[in-house]
């Protein structure tokens, strides 16, 4: 079956509207009433349970809006104007607080309330359609399906709805809504001097975006610098682990290597210790007075401590190296399986042709691996762009620098964002940066993903 090309969104929307206008024109009194009072059509035609469900849905929605949602939604435009009040309590000699508006709660619940319209629209549509369908069935003197029959379709030809409804609801509540909420913060001035409930924040439009891109030279410079290092880091961290892990796996797999299992186990032990424990220990080892420097000095290899983590270039080098140490075992394990799948005849013919091990690696192993692990590489790359653990636990973004606003030379965008949020309470700036990270990562991974061999030549595996 050929895939039908879908019309653009607005055309489909217009057609949808037309459909409902047509049904209204053709509808009788009850069907038309259903447009206002949900479930009217179903009730009038004896589908009591169905009608009550529709009506109940509408009532619940109105109750939710009037009793809860509207209180917050009415202030959505300003995000609140009255901060909480203080009242002197003479008897107890304390000030008590009269709760006022809370910008954050207004924003949060407004998003929730606005989102609640979506299920209502869906319910309303199915209500109108049910009314219209019932009317038509009546007009042609056919019997209407009972409630049980309707419900049964959920286990039969509408089974996909039953299966997907729960994941969809949780996805919307716990993933989509928080994201919308946090994206909206980027358009406010929620920072250290606007902390509800004491002092409220409001909308500032695109000011934060402008600040990061050009208006505030310090922010712009910091963002550019940190973004640059983030990419350098992601490239080095991803490919160093990938290639070295693969070489390690090749070495262990090589014929003639004894005690293969032992080697593999030794390397995998780094996985056995929780990453944050080993990273924190390693960061202690490399301080100016840490074990490594003390040993080097005692052996008179260096006279003064090497600034492993306090010099920008050293620190950048060290985080990449230490990341190799903690990351290689994973690539090694993964590569081992794939390497064993490479047809041995390829290597045989290569050796007959007199290829060197390096040539074999570049012409056979690497292309094969890249073909199979292309998507894996992309996820690792994206994971490294947001590799909070390694950076934060090793250097906490340090060494601090005056070039960046509240940032350090090994800060990734994500650790910088963390600092801005936790130390500076600059939520709006952090949210803006979060949006930028998302745009960059999404654009990059989609483009690269579509260019990988595994996608373009899906059907030509091997």
């Amino acid at each position, binding site marked *: 079956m050929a895939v039908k090309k879908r019309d653009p969104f607005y055309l489909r929307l217009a057609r949808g509207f037309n459909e409902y206008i047509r049904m209204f024109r053709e509808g009788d009194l009850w069907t038309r009433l259903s447009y206002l009072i949900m479930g009217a059509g179903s009730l009038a035609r004896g589908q009591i349970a169905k009608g009550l469900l529709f009506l109940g849905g509408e009532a619940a929605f109105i109750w939710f809006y009037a009793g809860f949602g509207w209180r917050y939604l009415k202030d959505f435009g300003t995000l609140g104007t009255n901060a909480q009040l203080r009242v002197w309590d003479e008897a107890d*000699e304390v000030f008590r*607080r009269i709760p006022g508006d809370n910008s954050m709660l207004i924003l949060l619940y407004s998003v929730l309330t606005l989102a609640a319209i979506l299920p209502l629209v869906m319910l309303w549509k199915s209500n109108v359609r049910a009314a219209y369908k019932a009317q038509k069935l009546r007009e042609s003197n056919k019997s209407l399906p009972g409630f049980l029959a309707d419900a049964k379709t959920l286990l039969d030809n509408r089974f996909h709805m039953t299966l997907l409804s729960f994941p969809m609801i949780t996805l919307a509540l716990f993933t989509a809504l928080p994201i919308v909420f946090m994206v909206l913060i980027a358009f406010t001035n929620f920072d250290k*001097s606007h902390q509800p409930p004491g002092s409220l924040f409001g909308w500032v439009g695109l000011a934060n975006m402008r600040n990061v891109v050009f208006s505030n030279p310090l922010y712009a410079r910091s963002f550019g610098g940190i973004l640059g290092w983030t990419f350098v880091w992601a490239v080095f961290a991803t490919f160093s682990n990938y290639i070295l892990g693969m070489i390690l796996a090749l070495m262990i797999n090589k014929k003639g290597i004894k005690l293969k299992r032992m080697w593999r186990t030794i390397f995998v032990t780094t996985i056995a210790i929780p990453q944050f424990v080993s990273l924190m220990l390693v960061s202690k080892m490399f301080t100016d007075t840490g074990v490594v420097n003390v040993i080097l000095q005692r052996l008179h290899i260096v006279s003064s401590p090497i600034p492993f983590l306090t010099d920008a270039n050293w620190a950048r080098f060290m985080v990449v190296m230490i990341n190799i140490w903690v990351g290689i075992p994973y690539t090694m394990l993964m590569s081992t399986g794939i390497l064993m799948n490479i047809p041995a005849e390829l290597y045989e013919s290569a050796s007959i042709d007199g290829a060197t091990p390096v040539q074999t690696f570049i012409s056979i192993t690497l292309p094969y691996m890249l073909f199979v692990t292309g998507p894996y590489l992309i996820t690792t790359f994206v994971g490294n762009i947001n590799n909070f653990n390694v950076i934060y636990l090793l250097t906490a973004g340090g060494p601090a620098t*005056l070039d960046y606003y*509240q940032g350090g030379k090994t800060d990734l965008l994500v650790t910088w964002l963390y600092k801005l949020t936790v130390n500076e309470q600059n939520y709006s700036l952090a949210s803006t940066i979060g949006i930028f990270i998302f745009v960059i990562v999404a654009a990059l991974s989609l483009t690269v993903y579509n260019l990988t061999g595994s996608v373009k030549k899906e059907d030509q595996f091997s």
Partner: protein
Amino acid sequence: MNVRKLTAIALAALITLGAASALADTVPLKVWGSQENQALLGELIEEFKAANPGVEWDISLGVVSEADAQTRYSEDPAAAADIFAFANDQLRTLVTSDSLSEIAGSRLEAVEAANTAGSVESATLDGVLYGFPMTADNGYFMYYDKSVFSEEDVLSLDRMLEVANAAGKKVFMDVSNGWYIASFFLGAGCTLDIGEDGKQICDFNNANGLAAAEAIRKFTADPAFMTGDDSVLQGGMGGSIAAGVSGTWNASAMEDKLGENYAAAPLPSFTCGGELKHMASFIGTKILGVNSLSDYVKEAMQLAEYLTNEASQLKFFEQRALGPTNIVAAANPAVQENIALAALSAQSAWGVSQKNVLNGYWGPAEAFGLEMENKSDADLQGLLDQLASQATQ
């Protein structure tokens, strides 16, 4: 106006009634204190319960260090503790978010009468007292090894470095830390203040600041200079380190390491643009604040007052060697004889209140200190301009 007042009073009365009726029930209170203070706080809370019968107290104790209180509070004010200890540099942020319940009326008079003027001032912002002063020791001074330095030596940084070099020892100071490095700038006459717009004012890039920066560069370049965190000082004191800038929390560790040679003094003077200037220091207090959103403000005040009274502060001194803010407790002979606290109180003559420092200062100051420790040859004026512009963002 009148209507508003009336409603406010009516509301207050309602709340009071609500609180009064709740009195018969349990009073749940949550207290945040540092890990080190947990045992003592628990003990004091039990005493408080015994001293206030007739109420069903349900007091829970959580671990949040004084340094993290504001951060943890802002995560969810409504779920934060009713009473929490915080370092007074967080006062302004906490007041901006209206997080602290003001102390007023007879309670205010009592706190003002019982505590040293400086400690009350450190908990006061724009004329309003926002918490109960708890300990007056959030400052730093110089620990030194009596066998290396004489009492005269520790008066001057130059002299100390000379002596240390001759003895092959180190002088320790964590210069890559905004808290300690400010010592030079503030000593040289620079200021950290808050402007009317609520933003940080920092003039470290003026001529005085430049002179101070040159002094820092000279200090960090000296072979006897050593930096690091607390663990470095604790490990090296008495060994390679002969003197170190730190605070009272290290007193017992220093005493253990140095034994008979344990001594402490105010910070020394340093040569700044040809003149001799005394190193200043941040002087801060720890304050016990009451969450303004607490459902039991009155009871929380009662408990906070108890935890900071004379007897409690003496216990904090005896068990944790924390300096009292209570006038009577501070006059106690045992407190007076404490070497570290004596040095701290002598240093307080050059103390600068930390409540006028916003969070934005620490990062850039640390970055500047790091440049100095790494013996960067960058233009000092340029670095200071960056420091000042970042701190005042």
